[in-house]
Every structure is written in structure tokens, then in C-alpha cells.
């Protein structure tokens, strides 16, 4: 009985670990050989470089706080996608089906963006952003320990194409 409980617990933990990033990994596999899409991957090793640094200013403190708790970032984006709307709908359906909780949707004349999260004990473990415009498509997954306010500040600081959409997390 004890063994069965341990085995079930182990399987539950393992499935949780594997589930993290599963959606974005699926899209990475789908577009791995398609040069029309830019694929970006930042590993936990990169983020770990920021963990033992001493900030000199408040701005640096915010930056280090936001970035040091992250474990990975993956993003796929394309700006001349022929079936962008279809791709956006499919990605939204995949995210919903995988049990992510909707956080926020932003719709404007140019594009739709939807933010969804997966949390554990009140701590956000993964943030997925799906964006789609007339010819644009972007799907981004951030995993680790995520503080939405800090992520928005990070996006404002980094001035990186694609990440800039995360600024919307602190708007409204």
C-alpha cells in the first residue's frame, strides 16, 4: 500500500514537471525546421548567472529579483504568417485544453494577446502568452517562480522584440 502511494506521488510529481513547458515544446517541434519563425530558448543556466549578484541601484534590484527566480524562457514568433488567425486560435485552444488558467486578454486593432498561467500553492510556475495579428503570431512561455509585476518591469527594461508584449501585464 505504502509503495503504491509513493509510486502514485512520484508519478504525479513527474507528470507535473514534464507538463511544464509541454505546450511550447510542442510548437518548437512543429516549427523546428521552418525558417519563417524565430525560435528563442533561454535555459535555467542563463538565469542562474543572475542569482548571486549584488545590486547597486533600485533598478538593478528589481531586475535581479525578476530574473533570478526564472528557470527558462521559450518563444516562437513570426511576422509574415499566412494563416496567423488560425494558428492563434489553435494555440489558444491548446493552452485551454492543457488546463492553464486565463489571466488576461488584450484585444486591439492590431492584435490579440492572451496571457494564461499555471500555479502551485499560489505561486505562478508558468506564464504562457499567445499573440496573433493579421500576419503575426507569437507564443511565449516563461517558467520558474513568476512575479507578474517584476516580469512587466523586466519587459520594459529589456527592449527585446516579442518580450515587449509582456509590458501589458502591468497595464490597466
Amino acid at each position: 500500500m505504502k509503495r503504491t502511494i509513493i509510486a502514485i506521488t512520484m508519478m504525479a510529481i513527474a507528470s507535473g514537471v514534464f507538463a511544464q513547458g509541454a505546450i511550447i515544446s510542442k510548437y518548437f517541434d512543429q516549427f523546428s525546421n521552418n525558417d519563417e519563425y524565430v525560435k528563442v530558448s533561454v535555459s535555467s543556466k542563463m538565469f542562474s548567472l543572475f542569482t548571486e549578484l549584488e545590486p547597486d541601484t533600485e533598478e538593478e534590484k528589481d531586475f535581479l529579483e525578476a530574473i533570478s527566480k526564472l528557470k527558462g524562457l521559450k518563444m516562437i514568433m513570426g511576422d509574415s504568417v499566412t494563416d496567423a488567425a488560425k494558428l492563434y486560435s489553435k494555440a489558444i485552444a491548446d493552452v485551454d485544453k492543457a488546463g492553464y488558467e486565463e489571466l488576461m486578454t488584450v484585444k486591439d486593432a492590431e492584435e490579440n494577446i492572451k496571457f494564461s498561467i499555471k500555479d502551485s500553492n499560489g505561486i505562478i510556475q508558468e506564464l504562457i502568452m499567445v499573440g496573433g495579428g493579421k500576419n503575426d503570431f507569437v507564443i511565449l512561455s516563461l517558467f520558474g517562480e513568476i512575479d507578474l509585476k517584476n516580469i512587466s518591469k523586466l519587459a520594459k527594461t529589456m527592449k527585446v522584440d516579442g518580450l515587449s508584449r509582456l509590458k501589458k501585464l502591468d497595464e490597466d
Partner: protein
Amino acid sequence: MKIESRQTMKILYLFCAIGVSAPLMAQEKPLKDFAEGIRDRKICLYASTLRMINLEKNADFNQLVNGIDKLLIYTLHSDPGERSGYQSLISSYQEEGFDEYVSLTGDSKMLMIYGKEGNKDQFVGVSNVEGYRLAFYLKGEIGWQKIPSLLQNFNNNVIFDFIQNDLSSELND
């Protein structure tokens, strides 16, 4: 007898020095071999020279580079991602204990950075982004916390253009 022992010590020191530096040289070698067929220029920079090319005298940039022991840059004339041997370059560094830090592919762009933590961190990378075709090897500490203020207040192109054009032509003259 004293002279003999002094000479023995010198030889021992020499062996130790070679022993210490040889693995570091070995870790530059796969990148050097990879870049050899497609490189325009080879530029070797240290913290002092990096501070020197900081023409805007930006204090954050200086703090970013102060801990760098060595930065070796190859400017390339063709896409490194298309170069045969790209996969074996990655395999060579993985065998040396380097891990993937960043990768970017698609839309005719590519960037890969592998790193290895240790007494002195080491990073190796190749890129073809926004017209900057480079391969690099870096040893030392980077002041990563300076990145936000650099992105906000510093024109990075000054450094990149200097490496890509001015410094390269100076070295060639």
C-alpha cells in the same frame, strides 16, 4: 647544488604554467578551428582594451567588463549556422562540460551561447543577428546586473560598430 635546485624549480614552474594554461587554450580550440575557414578578422580584447573602446565613457559598461579576463572575437564573412562542422562544434563544447545558455534560430538569424561555470566562467558563442556575424570566446566574470541600465542609456552599436569596422580595419592596416 643550489643552482641545480633553482633550475629544477624553474622547470617545475614552467610545467605547472603550461599545465594550467593548456586546458584553457584547448577550450578555445574548437571555436578557433570552426571560425578558421569563414573568418575575416580575429580580435582579442581584455578588460583594459574593452574599457578603452568604451568611447562614451559609460561607467556601467566599464563595470560590466571589469571582470573579463579575455574576449576573443572572430568576425565572419558568412553565416556560421550554414558552416559545415557547426554541429560538431556544439558537440565538442558539450563534451567539455559546456551547457546551452541561449539559442535563437529562424528568419535567417542564429545565435547560440554555451557556457561553463567554474573558478572563471567561460562562454562560447556564434551569431548571425542583424548583420553581426561573430564567433566569440569569453573567460571571466560579467557584471550582468548592469544590463538594464546599459539597455536604457547606452548605445551598444558604438561598441559593435567599433569591433566590426573601425578596430578591425585598424588592426589590418
